[in-house]
């Protein structure tokens, strides 16, 4: 199995490298200097030439590429025009927020999705299953940001149950000790995480229901019933353990969805994560920040998929034991 992990790791590194290359070429195509197509009139040609030399843009392209690669490898993603500090610093502030949001959403996605899927499979083709199935289909068809707005309207504006944006209340947190501020932060996290988690859970539930139904039809489930086990134990231990294996793949698929969904949900809830940063940066014409967020997002998706594959291999005794 270790050879397989090495191969899988190499593939992941190649993908990230390809993403870096792609951003480099996009940057290059767009001009990639303060003298790009933008504001050309305002910069004198001599200044432009000097700047090009200063940024190394007069060098051959492969040399620029090498330099870019070297810089990215060292965590140097350039300077943010808008925030006037290294991009990596801006990302460092935004990334934890995104990770907290995506992590919580993932938790909601899978606990809720698995529970619903198992419940639906246990009541297959009866009223509860059909009603939940259609509800899941509808939620799965909603634009994530719109669901966010609807939840915001209902729970924030009408019921005043939750705050309407941000990660915490700066005034409140300044007066409280850090422990109480955690509560406030969780309070702010609730709606955005629920929005992202619900849409994910709808997809997870559909998948989990199908996986459970497939397992329930198998012979070993009948064996478990013939043993005199409670139906609950048959479903939650014997069937679910088998149906969870394919769901690990779903775990890998959830990462692109979460990273993408986070962009819009962060924007709706003014949650200063990477997506929010990227959209703000677009407004500020700050393309080093935008490209850096794209790079980091690709990296997160790749790492997520890698993790899912490794966990899958570790969880399935048919793979684990044979390979050992």
């Amino acid at each position, binding site marked *: 199995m270790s050879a397989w992990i090495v191969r899988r790791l190499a593939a992941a590194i190649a993908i990230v490298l390809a993403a870096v290359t792609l951003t480099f070429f996009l940057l290059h195509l767009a001009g990639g200097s303060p003298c790009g197509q933008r504001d050309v009139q305002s910069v004198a040609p001599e200044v432009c030439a000097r700047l090009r030399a200063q940024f190394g843009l007069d060098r051959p392209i492969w040399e620029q590429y090498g330099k870019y690669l070297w810089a990215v490898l060292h965590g140097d993603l350039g300077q943010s025009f808008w925030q006037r500090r290294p991009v990596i610093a801006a990302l460092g502030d935004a990334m934890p927020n995104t990770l907290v949001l995506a992590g919580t959403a993932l938790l909601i996605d899978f606990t809720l999705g698995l529970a619903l899927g198992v419940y639906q499979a246990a009541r297959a083709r009866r009223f509860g299953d059909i009603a939940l199935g259609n509800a899941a289909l509808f939620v799965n068809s909603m634009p994530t940001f719109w669901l966010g707005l609807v939840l915001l309207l209902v729970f924030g504006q009408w019921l005043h149950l939750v705050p309407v944006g941000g990660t915490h209340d700066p005034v409140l947190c300044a007066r409280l000790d850090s422990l109480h501020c955690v509560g406030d932060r969780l309070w702010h996290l609730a709606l955005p995480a629920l929005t992202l988690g619900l849409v994910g859970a709808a997809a997870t539930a559909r998948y989990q229901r199908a996986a459970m139904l497939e397992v329930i039809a*198998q*012979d*070993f489930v*009948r*064996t*478990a*019933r*013939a*043993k*005199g*086990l*409670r*139906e609950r134990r048959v479903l939650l231990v*014997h069937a679910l*353990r*088998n149906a969870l*294996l394919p769901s690990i793949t779903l775990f890998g698929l959830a990462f692109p969805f979460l990273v993408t969904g986070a962009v819009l949900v962060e924007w709706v809830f003014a949650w200063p994560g990477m997506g929010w940063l990227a959209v703000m940066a677009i407004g500020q014409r700050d393309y080093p920040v935008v490209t850096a967020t794209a790079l980091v997002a690709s990296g997160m998706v790749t790492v997520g998929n890698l993790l899912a594959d490794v966990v899958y291999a570790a969880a*399935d*005794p*048919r793979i684990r*034991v*044979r390979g050992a």
Partner: protein
Amino acid sequence: MTEPLLRVRDLKTYFVTEHGSGTARAVDGVSFEVYPGETLGLVGESGCGKTVTSLSILRLIPEPPGHIRPGSFIEFEGRNLLTLAPRELRAIRGNRIAMIFQEPMTSLNPVFTVGDQIAEAAIVHQGLSRRRARARAVEMLKLVGIPDPAERVDHYPHQMSGGMRQRVMIAMALVCHPKLLIADEPTTALDVTIQAQILELLDRLQRDLGMAVMLITHDLGVVAGTADRVVVMYAGEVVEQAATGELFARPLHPYTEGLMASVPRIDTRVSQVRGRLHSIPGQVPAATAWPAGCRFHPRCPYAWDRCRQEAPPPLDAGAGEPGAHTVRCWLLTEPQRRSARA
């Protein structure tokens, strides 16, 4: 005679077909008994309702699409299994009545060790601690003849061969010392040499543990060596039942005759087998549309008008006690027709 351990009366298990277009009468009025300590062979071609009968006993029929019709009656140790509450039924499943299935490859859960799967029933039914249950699992593996049981107990099913897995299934079924073991085609999926070993094992365990065995098979040869009594099923009904010796000496139903004629005997030479292995023409009809009259008449060499119109009841063949040998065939009323054909 002793009281039967299991008494099945007029069992009817029907299935609603896929698009609700019809009803498959898979088991349609089956009655038989199993006595303590005996081996009963349940024989018939595939599609004649043997497996559904055995699943009905433990109420393992998936509902929907299946259901056991009201009026059916399955009595075990004096209680009707069909009216038990789920909780009482669970106390019988795997404990008083255990079952092993045809496919050892798919009947074991791939993500648990065989030890866990064997121990589970002991934990649930006898309240053993995990450690004692594990020790019991090792004991059971040894009992069913698996080498290195202390090591094998931690293996997963995919690490074992088909024969080994069937042994594990048997160990799992017997861990609570059931009074009745239902074995549904336990050897069909296995190699011929392994088949004999498994049958031998079942035979030995039955004697050692003093349980009754209901052996379901399509192979009369298997029954001949192991069963005390035989029930022959066709098209959802019991067509003949008798003690094994009596049945093989005097098969009365044309279907039983046909089954016997298709068993290759050890003493026939291969060259002879080709010519003489006569199987019954045609196949079991669909359970949604059993033929009218005697259900076997379209395939029966003796059939006459009465067979096409009127379904025969179980008739007593008059060997020993009443009911010891019964046959669902009009030939019993007009035996001259048999000799006329022959």
